[in-house]
């Protein structure tokens, strides 16, 4: 009986060692992500529904500034583009697990993001804005006035970084939509979310007619994220430079009314 136990233990140990071994091997040979993607013939793009960057039109096709650019990029690589909705918290795991090839969804380039992914050059300017109830908006037009509020921010987001930077008191929540929900239902006084999202989901014609945005906390930039060490990031930078120079990028941005915030490549 004891022999059995020690045998089982030895087996487990052996298995875990091989697991570590193969992982190290993989890290050193991950040099050509480009070859990997071209070999399998698809570029799987991790997205969330985020108008006007990635969203579905009436026919169920993925459109938006990011979706259109991703399709063009895949075309230039000679592969099929495939859009995959993901849980935003799991984006790095999705990349490392090779269940997606790229995160292309209006992603703010934070220190954390740059640490975890191989990022492209910034291509779009965005800001983090404070969301409050519309009837209280007048009181909260300066950064000083924010100290007394309880914030709700998406866990790990650029909004959370700003809350930390201004040492505001906050509760991290699942996503930006939940942060809005918290403000609307009164469980938080205010939220910090993307400017683009604030424009799209507050005010008249949305479920959050009672909310509005006030102070702009930080200007920030959007980038595209690949697996750490991937050569696709450099490839995309070339692609961006080329498409910016020939006006394609501006043309696509114009289609969604966001050309003024493009970053020169």
């Amino acid at each position, binding site marked *: 009986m004891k022999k059995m136990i020690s045998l089982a233990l030895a087996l487990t140990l052996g298995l875990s060692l091989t697991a570590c071994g193969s*992982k190290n091997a*993989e890290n050193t040979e991950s040099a050509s992500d480009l070859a990997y993607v071209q070999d399998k013939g698809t570029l799987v793009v991790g997205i969330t*529904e985020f108008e006007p960057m990635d*969203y579905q039109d009436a026919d169920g096709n993925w459109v938006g500034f990011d979706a259109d650019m991703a399709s063009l990029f895949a075309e230039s690589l000679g592969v099929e583009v495939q859009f995959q909705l993901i849980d935003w918290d*799991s984006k790095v795991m999705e990349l490392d697990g*090779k269940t*997606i090839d790229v995160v292309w969804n209006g992603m703010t380039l934070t220190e954390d993001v740059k640490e975890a992914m191989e990022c492209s050059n910034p291509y779009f300017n965005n800001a983090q804005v404070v969301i409050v109830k519309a009837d209280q908006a007048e009181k909260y037009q300066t950064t000083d006035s924010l100290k007394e509020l309880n914030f709700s921010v998406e866990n790990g987001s650029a909004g959370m970084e700003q809350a930390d930077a201004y040492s505001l008191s906050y509760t991290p929540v699942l996503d930006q939509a939940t942060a809005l929900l918290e403000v609307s239902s009164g469980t938080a006084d205010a939220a910090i979310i993307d400017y683009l999202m604030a424009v799209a*989901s507050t005010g008249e014609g949305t*479920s959050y007619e009672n909310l509005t945005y006030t102070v702009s906390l930080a200007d920030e930039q959007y980038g595209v994220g690949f697996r750490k060490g991937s050569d696709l990031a450099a490839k995309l930078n070339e692609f961006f430079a080329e498409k910016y120079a020939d006006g394609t990028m501006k043309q696509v941005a114009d289609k969604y009314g966001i050309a003024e915030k493009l970053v020169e490549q």
Partner: protein
Amino acid sequence: MFLTVIGALNEGFLQTLKLFFVTLLGALPLGLVICWGSMTRFYPLRWLCRFVVWVIRGTPLMLQLYIIFFIPGIVMDQSPWPAGESGRFLACAVAFILNYACYFSEIYRGGIQGVPRGQQEAGQVLGMTKVQIFVHVTLLQMIKRIVPPMSNEIITLVKDTSLSRIISLQEVIWAGQAFLKTSHGYSGLLWPLFFTGVYYLVFNGLVTLLLGRLEKKLDYFS
């Protein structure tokens, strides 16, 4: 607007139902296999089965979903799960079947061991084989005994399918949550998320009725 939202939720609930039925179909027989393994006199197999049951029952299903879906691709050069929704469904099905089979196996074991040993001995005296004893003496009594605890697990399973959203299977909660941002041309809608509760409630009502009827039907010896 209402129709669009309902259409999207229906589509999501279809995934929920698919996962529910696939899990039942896989876990009911697999549970019996694990149950048999955990009672066998061949001790290495018995320990292995009990070890697996301990690990699976001892860790959150949410974590198991993460591990089954992401770890293979991180360790190997390529993810074994096909790209797209089908790969995610497959990973969910594997995780749910394994998880529920372990719970079912323990319920089965309770059902089998609850049948008095004397009945098996009586069968042996009558010259029945082990298989005959199991099929004709133990099995029916076991089925009758396990219906109430199984009902509990099955109803929990209906609701647990919602965990699959963390690896982005687009089931009904995902579909409802999508309207918080933007989905099918509508932004910032609150009610679809809460409305998904109606789907679970109605379906679980049906399941409860069905299982109640089954229990009555099996009420042949009390």
